[in-house]
């Protein structure tokens, strides 16, 4: 015992921790390093069993190791954690041997905490890195987009599985040839030019080109790409926009078709009117000659009827042409117009009919001036007022209320009469139809409402009708500001 104690005392300056532990597991002697490391005074150390200092998770391991070491001299040192007085973990690499002639054991331990924590932090970093890598790999593999890295020689060096899925080639096939070989011939030049930009460090956004699949189908790709670093490797992400492009092309084709159809219709209307007008004009003149010749009364009647028929025919054709012309933007100039003045003008135009029916027109314009097409506004006033006059009730004098006001972000223009009204249950969806008439009235052409609806809608507004038979009709026009 003395020898050992002396040995330990002499080793005051040794960095290793040296102690003698008795059979009960208590320290009998220890060098100062223990106190330095664990924070306990020597006196304290001698009063605590060694195992109590060991981290509770490592205690059984320590017990086992000590047993092993004592049975098998020269076996590997064991590593356990001790807890300092401050609660810190101290990693100790220890060996324990029987001191032959004395009671107790010699325990020599080395503080490897620093090594251990460094190692564990590296391990942790590595694990985190692996996790990150796996996450990135997952992202790379799961992405719906086509992701690639290509080298300065123009070959793909890394491709995500989406490539094979979309292109129909295996990954090896895709990496076997320069990527340009897969680009649509018409887009190769652009692609080369665009790729060249990257060597100046330019990042490409939204570059579009076409690739050809193994089956020869076109795939439209929308690229974002950037040079990774000075190695010249390029990182690219492409989105397959083939569907969207197809959709666009389809819409464009439909639009072109519609424009053509519309033009065809316009031409049709003009040609029809032209081809019909010539003979109608002739009929007019011929009946005129007939009238001037000597006719029997019967012949006179026929002539009259022919003339009337020709007039109706002529009018119908003019109406048809009017309808076609609404869609042409001739009268769409928007300007500030006074509602009051427009109303007065139209009243003047309809003065005969107003006098005849003894109609009363009451206006209340809370908004007096609006930005609108003057021709369209006149058309609205003219058609709606003349409709009210035409379809007035024989039981009462016509009263027409016209008002305007601002409602939210639009102007409401309301025409309300006390006339015959329309059976909306019966005709609701046809009121604004082409050549629809709802009264047994000879002068009804069924065009006015059709025309103004087209005009209002051409200026993004709406028109709605509310009517009750024998009570009256109310039109509400919404004008967008």
């Amino acid at each position, binding site marked *: 015992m003395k020898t050992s104690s002396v040995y330990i005392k002499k080793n005051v300056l040794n960095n290793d921790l040296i102690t003698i532990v008795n059979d009960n597991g208590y320290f009998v002697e220890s060098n100062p390093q223990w106190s330095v490391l664990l924070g306990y005074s020597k006196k304290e150390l001698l009063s605590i069993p060694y195992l109590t200092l060991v981290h509770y998770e490592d205690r059984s391991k320590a017990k086992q190791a000590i047993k092993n070491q004592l049975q098998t001299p020269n076996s590997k040192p064991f590593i356990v954690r001790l807890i300092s007085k401050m609660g810190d973990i101290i990693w100790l690499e220890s060996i324990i041997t029987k001191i032959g002639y004395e009671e107790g054991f010699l325990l020599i331990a080395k503080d490897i905490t620093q090594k251990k924590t460094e190692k564990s932090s590296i391990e942790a970093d590595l694990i985190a890195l692996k996790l990150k890598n796996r996450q990135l790999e997952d992202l790379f593999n799961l992405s719906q987009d086509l992701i690639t890295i290509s080298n300065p020689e123009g070959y793909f060096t890394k491709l995500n599985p989406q490539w094979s899925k979309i292109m129909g080639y295996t990954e090896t096939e895709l990496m076997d040839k320069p990527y340009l070989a897969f680009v649509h011939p018409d887009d190769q030049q652009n692609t080369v030019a665009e790729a060249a930009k990257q060597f100046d460090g330019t990042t490409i956004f939204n570059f579009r080109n076409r690739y050809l699949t193994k089956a020869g189908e076109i795939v439209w790709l929308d690229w974002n790409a950037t040079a990774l670093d000075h190695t010249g490797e390029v990182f690219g992400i492409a989105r397959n926009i083939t569907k969207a492009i197809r959709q666009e092309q389809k819409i464009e084709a439909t639009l072109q078709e519609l424009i053509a159809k519309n033009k065809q219709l316009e031409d049709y209307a*003009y040609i029809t*009117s*032209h081809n019909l*007008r*010539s*003979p109608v*004009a*002739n009929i*007019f*003149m*011929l009946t005129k*000659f007939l009238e001037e010749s000597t006719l029997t009364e019967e012949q006179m009647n026929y002539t009259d009827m022919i003339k009337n028929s020709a007039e109706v025919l002529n009018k119908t054709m003019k109406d048809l*042409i009017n309808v076609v012309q609404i869609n*042409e933007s001739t009268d769409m100039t928007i300007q500030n117009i006074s509602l009051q003045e427009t109303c007065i003008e139209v009243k003047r135009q309809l003065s005969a009919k107003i006098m005849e029916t003894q109609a009363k027109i009451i206006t209340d314009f809370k908004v007096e001036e609006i930005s609108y097409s003057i021709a369209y506004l006149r058309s609205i006033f003219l058609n709606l007022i003349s409709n009210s006059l035409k379809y007035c009730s024989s039981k009462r004098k016509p009263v027409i209320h016209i008002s305007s006001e601002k409602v939210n972000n639009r102007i409401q223009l309301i025409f309300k009469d006390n006339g015959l009204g329309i059976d909306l249950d019966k005709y609701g969806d046809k009121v604004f139809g082409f050549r629809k008439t709802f009264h047994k009235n000879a002068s009804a052409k069924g065009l006015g409402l059709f025309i103004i609806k087209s005009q209002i809608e051409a200026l993004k507004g709406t028109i709605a009708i509310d009517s009750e038979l024998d009570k009256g009709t109310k039109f509400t026009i919404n004008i967008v500001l």
Partner: protein
Amino acid sequence: MSKENHILCLIDDDNIHQFIIKKIVHKLSPNQKLLVFSNGEEGINFIRSTIGKIEKLPDLILLDINMPVMDGWGFLEEFVTITPEIKKDIIIYILSSSDNPTDTEKAKEFELVSGYLIKPINEDQLESLLESV
């Protein structure tokens, strides 16, 4: 009143319209000279063949647009090329049943077209036309 030594010319493929114009012209002034051609080619051929004979060239041409063989536009294009040789002021009016804006606009491109009339034309219009010559 119209001067009867003036020559009126109608270029129109429609027989009935030809008849109507003849009838009105006759009514307005029974001795009015009226040349009638059924298409632009007949009209331009006549003018070419009588280019030197001022007294035989028309003073006023009523020109239809839609005609077979050579339409009104074709006639005007040919006419423009020979105007320098014509030593007479010939007034040309379009007389068509087309009120298609593309036609009325196109007519404006020809300086030598004095006006655009839409069928049917009545006695009063024709009378004032003849007087204007």
